[in-house]
């Protein structure tokens, strides 16, 4: 089986985010970036499937500016076989939406004749949680999202999903799109010898146009601001005062 895994370069989870002075985005200059944590889990799952000999080749795909290459390299160091970098300018990156990404992925799936697509469930910068679902729709493939366990049974996948109501087990026919949730696995560290070996692996470069996608925005960002600062609370002595205060504030 051939697997395509999507990886996105995002601001590192430990960094304190600051809003840009023009209020149209966040500060990304000089800020530490790394691979989206859910994508790490996705790559790790693909590598484990490869170790179990279920998957034969793993292609890591990233859409982004030049630095996205670093993210692909990390994926290669973790065990992917080759990479595809869909390159665009930083300005275009701001216009990039899940719909574009899923169109690109669908296009690559057809080109590479992949059998399975593994993505992180959402990116920690935009939290859209849409790419996996859109990709499966475009490919007309079954989807298994929020996976916390994946097993192959014949030509189907048995997937344990973490949903709001609890856990759900589904069976999807291959080829399918899977999106990784937090507890699917614990990603390995890219060891230094693997990093050195990864340098020999190839990364193909493409443009969005090559995948038949034009980066047209469907909406404009009007304003980006910090969440409101949490205000101090008030302590009351009894329930009557509480009700009175709530009435005052117009809440009841």
């Amino acid at each position, binding site marked *: 089986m051939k697997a395509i895994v999507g990886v996105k370069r995002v601001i590192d989870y430990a960094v304190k985010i600051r809003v840009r002075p023009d209020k149209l985005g966040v500060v990304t200059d000089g800020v530490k970036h790394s691979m989206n944590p859910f994508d790490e889990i996705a790559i790790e799952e693909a590598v484990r499937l490869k170790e179990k000999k279920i998957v034969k080749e793993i292609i890591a795909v990233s859409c982004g500016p030049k630095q996205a290459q670093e993210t692909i390299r990390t994926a290669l*160091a973790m065990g992917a076989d080759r990479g595809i970098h869909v390159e665009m300018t930083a300005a275009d990156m701001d216009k990039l939406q899940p719909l574009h990404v899923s169109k690109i992925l669908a296009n690559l799936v057809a080109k590479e004749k992949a059998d399975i697509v593994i993505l992180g469930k959402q990116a920690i910068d935009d939290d859209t949680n849409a790419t996996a679902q859109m990709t499966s729709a475009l490919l007309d493939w079954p989807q298994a999202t929020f996976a916390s366990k994946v097993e192959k049974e014949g030509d189907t996948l048995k997937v344990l999903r973490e949903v709001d109501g609890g856990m759900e087990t589904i069976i999807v026919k291959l080829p399918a799109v899977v999106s990784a949730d937090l507890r699917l696995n614990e990603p390995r560290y890219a060891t230094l010898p693997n990093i050195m070996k990864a340098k020999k692996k190839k990364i193909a470069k493409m443009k969005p146009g090559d995948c038949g996608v034009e980066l047209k925005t469907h909406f404009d960002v009007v304003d980006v601001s910090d969440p409101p600062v949490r205000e101090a609370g008030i302590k009351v002595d009894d329930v009557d005062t509480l009700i009175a205060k709530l009435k005052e504030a117009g809440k009841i």
Partner: protein
Amino acid sequence: MISTRQILQKCLRVQSATRSWTSSRCISTSDKDPSAAAAQAEVHEAEDFDDYGSAPIQQKPERPPFVKELFLGRFDKERLIFPEVLEKERHETLHEMVEPIERFFEEQVDSEKIDREAKIPQETLDGLKELGLYGMQIPQKYGGLEMGATEFARLSEITALDGSIAVTLAAHQSIGLKGILIAGNEEQKQKYLPRLATGEWTAAFALTEPSSGSDAASIQTKATLADDGKTWLLNGGKIWISNGGYANMMTVFAKTDITDHLGGVKEKVTAFIVERDFGGVSAGKPEDKLGIRGSNTCQVFFDNTPVPMENVLGEVGGGFKVAMQILNSGRFSMGSSSAALWEKAIGMREAFHLVARRTGICLLIAVLLKCHFEYIKINEIYILRHIIFRVSETLRNGYRMNGSFFGEVKILKIRVDRGNLDQWGIYCNTFFGTLRELKSYGYKRVLENSGILVVFFGNNEPDIAFTLFIMVYRLQYAGIELSQMVKKLRNPLMNPGFIIGKGMENFRQKRDNPKLDLNLGEQLHPALGSSAEALEYCIKRFQYGVESVLGRHAKKVVDPANQLEIARLADCAIDLFGMTAVLGRASRSKSIGIRNSEHEIHLAMTFTQQASMRIKKRVSDLENGPFVCGDKALNQIADELFEHGGYVAEHPLTRTYW
């Protein structure tokens, strides 16, 4: 457009480079008193290095040794240009490597637990091996990562985050197996390096003995040739051996009998590769230490351990040289480890909160604290950081140590030592106060661990003594040149131009106003113009200081009584090197537009200013002579102390009358 003067200077430099090599060979045969000669021989042995190791890394052409030339007032302007050390690809690869290691240390290393339990968990050790950290400098063909000095220094910054791990790794690869890399033959490399690279085997370095610490030549462990003539029998004991409790392979130094060409028998040190499995190797119990508690340190005993002939490292009798090469090649990484530790500590949020809180209490104290905080710590880190990378530039393939750069590395070590002991202690006490005692805050651990950075590659005090020897050596190097000058001085009619020039120069120097003609400002960003002048001033004053000292004492400069003067010169050289490094780095940052380069310019200018005040004072002390600057008085007090065998003054409550 190259000016005529620059062409001339270039020619002079080439000339001096060739002359320096020939003159340095002459020094050892000239007539000096025997103790100095012995010291020099030691220095010479240590400095007489060969080129080792296959270098896939591009070599840049040699530059004349910076610190040595400084003694003659010759300043290599190229040094002001901060080297771009790594080509693009290696730079990128290094970048990629930093991330997983940092994450590993953040997520998997519980320093508090390691310190408390005095043990590094096996999973952590396995993780380190898997990451590839056990074979960083081993060539790829033996399974290692073949990293250059720069990469290694950068990664040492991360491993330093836990003192015990840093020491375990350093004992294994910076010294334990380094001997094989430097002096091993192909069979030895093939036999041992692959297992050491993966961490399957751990290495240790066994030189120190209870009676022989800094004086490596006085070790007493003995190796005698067995009857079959093919095996050495090792007998003796070593102390303070990191990884000694479980290392599979050790580099052991022992005395062997050497018959010289005249038939006399002498004892000389030989290096051996000893496997624990050879038999007769036992270890004492692990020492309970103040800092780096997770690393294994113990005594190691050898009882008739058989070591095959093939396991001699280098030549029989050539062990001292091997030991020095090993230690020198690894020392600089202590610098980057220190800088990283301090940087992290400064970043500790609590510190900033404390300063902020105290501002509310008393403005005056707050200002003092803030300034102290900024200048001292940050300056040290800044300087250290790029002295490292400057030094690593000269160590292109990781373990080659050209003798002349010995000075630079020594200076590095001294900065590390002083920074760690003096500054760290002040810093911790001033800022953290009682917080320091709380183990959970980690400051205590940093304080304790910082001690090891001083001692690991050879203790500070004898280091200073050793450095003094180097300086003396340099002085004599300068002396040869100056003696030529003195000849000219004595022959005024034949050298009128020279005499007049020299006279003018001296006249100006006596008024503390040397002519600044080096034009260093050209090499630096204009923002650093005034600092460039300050540096020139310091170089000229330093040269004057050297001449004064030599002029005053001539051959007797090696006399112990004059050590305080030499120490002043040594400190000046240290500051000069620091200034050069700092200005070069700040200039480069500003020129290529690195973020926050303005801050760097401020740091550079401040350091330069303070350093030049220090140099000014020192040279003026030298000028005034030992009576005026207090040296004679200090010496006298010290003599009285030693004579008395302890504190001399009587207790203040003593009375002689009632």
